[in-house]
């Protein structure tokens, strides 16, 4: 029973993290059709901004939302600087991979210059530990498990129930038709990036609360997010979310039985297999679209 509980809890926790990491990437891909290779860096940036605000004395309850807003603003700027000007180019996806990679490197080294290489830590969402059955877990982990579905649910509501969310979904599916209906495509692109950045920031805050932050902490989450998005299907947002939890459980089980050692290789094998057998991803339908 202990094994099951540990795997279940581990899976929920990892799954929640992966979902937070992946959904922003999926949002940008399905809306604008580009892969943002600075997504991991945004997680790191969000964590650092939050850390700085907390350092200056702000209570986390105020610091965290502010960091989210600030990161969203940077996301908007990124889009305006290195994505929007390239729309309409042939090889858009490729070029954007390069420019977002470069922008990510820029931000990463900027953070390194400003804050230095020494590890930092964020206060957890909730302090303290508890026992669930026979396993010791931190309240921070429980908070993440609880909060993530709430945030994702809010995102879902936004996309499916609001007019703005509808506009975002429309732009994802047909840009020309969106223009002919009077949508402000430029602003919507910015919004997509801003929301993605905000979500990345949250992921960073979650991570910063239980492990050490460093300027390069975004690299591994980016890879994980990519795996989740590819596995879950890059044609919608819901696919990656399910995939995130699936992979979370898979990873928890792998770590338990085979150790942390082999897990990256196994994950990669999963990625390759998925792409060979079903390149659209496990949970997707043809074509691109949100929700």
């Amino acid at each position, binding site marked *: 029973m202990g094994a099951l509980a540990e795997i279940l809890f581990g899976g929920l926790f990892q799954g929640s993290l992966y979902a937070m990491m992946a959904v922003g990437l999926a949002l940008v891909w399905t809306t604008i059709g580009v892969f943002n290779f600075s997504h991991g860096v945004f997680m790191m940036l969000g964590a650092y901004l939050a850390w700085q605000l907390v350092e200056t004395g702000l209570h986390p309850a105020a610091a965290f939302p502010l960091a989210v807003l600030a990161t969203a603003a940077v996301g908007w700027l990124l889009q305006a600087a290195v994505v929007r000007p390239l729309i309409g180019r042939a090889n858009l996806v490729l070029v954007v991979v390069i420019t977002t*990679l470069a922008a990510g*490197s820029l931000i990463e*080294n*900027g953070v390194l210059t400003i804050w230095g290489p020494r590890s930092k830590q964020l206060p957890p969402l909730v302090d303290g530990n508890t026992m669930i059955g026979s396993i010791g877990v931190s309240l921070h982990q429980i908070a993440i498990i609880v909060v993530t579905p709430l945030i994702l649910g809010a995102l879902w509501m936004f996309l499916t129930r609001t007019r703005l969310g509808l506009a975002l979904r429309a732009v994802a599916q047909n840009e020309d038709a969106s223009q002919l209906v009077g949508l402000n495509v430029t602003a919507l692109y910015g919004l997509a990036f801003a929301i993605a950045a905000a979500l990345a920031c949250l992921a960073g805050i979650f991570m910063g609360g239980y492990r050490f932050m460093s300027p390069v902490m975004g690299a591994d989450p980016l890879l994980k997010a*990519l795996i989740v998005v590819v596995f879950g299907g890059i044609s919608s947002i819901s696919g990656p979310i399910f995939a995130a939890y699936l992979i979370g459980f898979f990873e928890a089980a792998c770590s338990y039985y085979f150790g942390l050692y082999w897990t990256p290789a196994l994950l990669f094998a999963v990625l390759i297999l998925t792409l060979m057998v079903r390149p659209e991803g496990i949970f997707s339908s043809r074509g691109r679209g949100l929700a």
Partner: protein
Amino acid sequence: MMDQIKRNIRAPGRTPWQREAVGFVLGLAVLALMPFVFADSYSRHILIMAFIYAIVASNWDLSLGYGGVFNFGHLALFGIGVYAYALLTKLAGLDPWLALAASGVVATLAAVLVTIPILRLKGIYIILVTFGFAQLVMQVIISQSEITGGTQGIVRIPGLYLFDHNMVRDGKIGYFGIALALLAASTIFLRVLVRSRTGASIVALRDNEEYAISRGVSLVRQRLITLAASAFFTGVAGAFYAAYQRNASIDVFGMSLATIVLSMVLLGGTGTIYGAIIASFVLTIFAEAMADFGAWRPMITAVLIIVVMLVYPSGLVGMLRAAWAGLTGRLKRPA
């Protein structure tokens, strides 16, 4: 009038091979004379590094620029060359020159392995899989630390030898010569390939996949050839790097190196081979000038990449071509 038409109807950008060969030999001669101009060890080191980067970047141009396949794991092939050489010489005791060649083969095999899953995939999936591949290779090397030294790397790797020449106290001229020879060999290989029928079919696949396939070009075979071809000298360059530095570390798998080399490919202008080479020289010297800038160096490089991509996507070669055309009035097409 017919003569005028005949003169103007030329495959765009296609200089006749004789002209190219002359230019190549001239360039080679200039580079060969460099160590006599720059007699100090440090300058020669810069040149050697530039040659290594040039090989890696120009081979990346083959798969990326000509093949249209963004192999995000190209630098991993370089890294595989590094570690293959290190392990072959240190653990297996293989002769350094044999190890050099073998490393190229190992890298080629790795490229073939990577190509298999991406044989029929489209754009973004290729980027993702090759990215994942690069990460995986790095993970494997880190995890097998008893053999590979993990994050500490491998030290005291045997260097290359030239008959009885003392490679250590010669002011680096021995390694310089080898590096230049490798660059020459790689470039000849690439240019011959690009100018051949195979090269043309690779480009045809890039430009219009469906049409090329309908005309009998095999997507699978060409992709395999493209990636394998781009891997050999990249692996050799990695082996040479390990032999030259006498150590191996996993830094070669890092994002920063990949970004630098990618910027060389882009800055030079994709689809030219020579562009990447020229850009490698420019950027290596540029980077050296900025060596003391600390974290500012990658930041400036990053800004450079962004600016080039935004403003001048066809890179240096594109700029040069446009300037040349402007001077000679050659590129004017009839309205």
